[in-house]
């Protein structure tokens, strides 16, 4: 094998790329995983993971210099002092916002698997059937039974803690022991269940934290410093989980600083032959060849690579023959919150910092409920006692004030909605040929907005959230409809969707490109609809399934 030739190329090393590399390596393929950013070594490079809060010069918060350097990241919580190194530079990597789209990126080995919220939910037939039933976009080419064994498979390896609930809208999985709701959350859950006759549920979040022994992983220590990297490897990341498995096979080559600029395509064989790489440090160009290519560069970047590929045959890029490449961009819309305080429980507190909260699965437009919009939303939240950042009625200055603040305050509870965004053809990503990044590469232009369906849903999200808390006896419930700008969910999806027909979709039911069958796309871009559940677990399952298919097709000499 020549130095630049492999059996498989995996582009991207985040959640789905890590899975692709592991599966392909374990099946005996020689794999190169290309990552545009720098390397981050497990544990060794988690330089801030064991620091106390006082060891950060600005106690974790942003400086004016950071605000200036990160015009996009500053729009929400990601701009912070503690893990700034793991968020992509807005200045080096600009993009065009035809409409405002907050794009928060992680360019390093592990990608956003180091930074993710770890909430892990399955999507079920209610979601897989929705497009077809409602005449929206195109039908998913598979159903839950096709992906269920793969959810089982990835959950067992990744380690997903959770409780079995038997809910059709949120299929149960192969769970590690669930984390615990605290006593206020348990009580609120019971009151919601009673008030709504068992039709609404508040459950512990299903999260990718190891709560019982898994080989090679540490058990969650309840530090809640996950996004600094976990020295115990207790949450799922490429570094803690899939990368060591891939490395162990001896079949993996990992190449950081590798910006894949295009997939190389042979029009005679109608297959891809490899990829072109721009070395981010040296600006040298390299070619890597392989029999099969997995694109896992994250939704918008995978689409960008495809738009730059095979343009001599399709001006709009590889995968554009359907006219759907770059279209149907989705996210989850966030920003609607409800909160209040809870009477009593003064003699209760918690021990440990649980990096997880509660989840209220979707209840709208299900089981006979019918709203003035399609689909639905879930809530995520938590109950906790107020900290020192509160007013003390009797004191404002001095010893009594200080002593009062050193004790926990009232119990409060708050939650925010995660709503489904429909796949709209006009919500799209295109190439902006008038603007370039640090490496002289054209950037993407994003044109995406919430529409009537989402805006109507947000009204329910607000009133339902407040009503549920009130029904549970929560005091002074307040709610607000905050910033729902697309992108802020950090769940970009849909720009190379799966489907049943090459005329209306980019990928077939195996995540194979209709236009190049040895190219598989298994990051969020394959999503035909968004559901309202956090999507990463679904990427893992589809990736493992696609890798299995790719290897079996290779053996049959079909690729």
């Amino acid at each position, binding site marked *: 094998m020549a130095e630049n030739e492999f059996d498989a190329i995996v582009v991207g090393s985040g959640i789905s790329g890590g899975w692709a590399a592991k599966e392909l390596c374990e099946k005996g393929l020689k794999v190169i995983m290309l990552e545009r950013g720098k390397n981050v070594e497990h544990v060794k490079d988690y330089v801030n993971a064991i620091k106390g809060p*006082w060891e950060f010069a600005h106690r974790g918060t942003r400086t004016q210099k950071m605000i200036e350097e990160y015009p996009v990241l500053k729009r929400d919580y990601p701009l912070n002092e503690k893990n700034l190194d793991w968020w992509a530079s807005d200045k080096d990597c600009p993009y065009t916002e035809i409409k405002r789209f907050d794009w928060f990126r992680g360019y390093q080995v592990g990608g956003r698997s180091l930074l993710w919220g770890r909430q892990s939910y399955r999507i079920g037939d209610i979601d897989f059937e929705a497009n077809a039933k409602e005449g929206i976009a195109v039908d998913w080419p598979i159903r839950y039974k096709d992906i269920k064994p793969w959810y089982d498979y990835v959950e067992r390896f990744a380690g997903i803690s959770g409780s079995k609930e038997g809910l059709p809208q949120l299929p149960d999985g192969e769970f590690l022991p669930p984390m615990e709701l605290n006593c206020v*959350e348990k009580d609120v859950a019971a009151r919601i269940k009673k008030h709504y006759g068992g039709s609404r549920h508040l459950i512990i979040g299903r999260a990718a934290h190891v709560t019982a022994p898994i080989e090679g992983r540490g058990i969650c220590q*309840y530090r809640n410093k996950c996004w600094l990297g976990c020295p115990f490897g207790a949450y799922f990341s490429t570094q803690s989980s899939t990368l060591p498995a891939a490395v162990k096979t001896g079949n993996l080559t990992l190449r950081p600083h590798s910006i894949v600029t295009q997939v190389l395509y042979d029009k005679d064989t109608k297959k891809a032959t490899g990829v072109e790489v721009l070395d981010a440090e040296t600006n040298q160009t390299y070619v890597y060849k392989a029999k099969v290519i997995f694109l896992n560069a994250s939704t918008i970047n995978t689409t960008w690579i495809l738009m730059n590929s095979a343009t001599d045959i399709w001006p709009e890029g590889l995968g554009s023959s359907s006219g759907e490449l770059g279209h149907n961009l989705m996210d989850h819309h966030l920003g609607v919150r409800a909160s209040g305080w809870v009477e009593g429980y003064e003699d209760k507190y918690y021990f440990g910092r649980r990096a997880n909260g509660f989840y209220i699965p979707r209840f709208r437009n299900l089981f006979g409920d019918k709203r003035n919009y399609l689909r639905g939303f879930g809530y995520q939240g938590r109950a906790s*006692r107020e900290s020192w950042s509160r007013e003390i009625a009797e004191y404002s200055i001095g010893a009594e004030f*200080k002593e009062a603040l050193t004790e926990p305050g009232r119990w409060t509870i708050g939650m925010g909605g995660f709503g489904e965004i429909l796949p709209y053809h006009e919500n799209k990503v295109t190439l902006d040929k008038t603007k370039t990044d640090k490496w002289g590469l054209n950037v993407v232009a994003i044109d995406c907005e919430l529409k009537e369906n989402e805006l109507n849903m947000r009204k329910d999200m607000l009133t339902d959230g407040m009503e549920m808390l009130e029904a549970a006896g929560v005091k002074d419930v307040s709610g607000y409809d905050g910033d729902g700008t697309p992108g802020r969910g950090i769940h970009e999806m849909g720009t190379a969707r799966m489907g049943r027909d090459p005329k209306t979709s980019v990928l077939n039911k195996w995540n194979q490109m209709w236009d190049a069958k040895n190219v598989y796309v298994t990051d969020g871009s394959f999503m035909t609809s968004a559901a309202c559940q956090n999507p990463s677990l679904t990427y893992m399952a589809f990736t493992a399934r696609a890798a299995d298919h790719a290897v079996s097709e290779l053996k049959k000499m079909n690729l």
Partner: protein
Amino acid sequence: MINRRDALTRVSLILGGTIIGAEAFLTGCKPAAPALSTIEFTDNNVSFLDEVGETILPTTASSPGAKAAEIGAFMKIMVTDCYEADDQKIFLEGIGQLNEEAKTAAGKDFMLLSAEEKKELLISLDAAAKTHEESKEEGAKSHYFTMMKQLTLWGYFSSEIGATQALRYVETPGRYDGCAPYEKGQKAWAL
């Protein structure tokens, strides 16, 4: 994603719902005025702010106060690096104004007041600041004392002294108990 989305709430709850200097954090796109390049704190300013902080959160039987946590130096860093230019100006001028308030109220520089006089003065300034925050128009700037108090609380309770002595800090809890007994007087968790 849950925790990440709570990060803001925790600090913004301190006085008035806004983290001064980080408005962009809350409003999304508002362009930030560049920080003053010429801003300079003197050693005297830092000592002065130590005293302001110590008056807000003094040493008590159970834990050292804000001065021990070097609150003046913390305020200097935060105002210099994190505040927008117009907030920096309000804060720096606020040091002088606070001293003028001391002279008006007690006929002496703030640094020469007794602990009790300092406390009395800051209680009245706190009331004035609260009135200002409640009555100001949206987008109008905060009172300098709101800034000083916010930074004092934030800086103290996130300092090593504040987190480990005034509060309880367990680096690696190792387990979670969602229904632990609590007795009045027990300290809150630092995180």
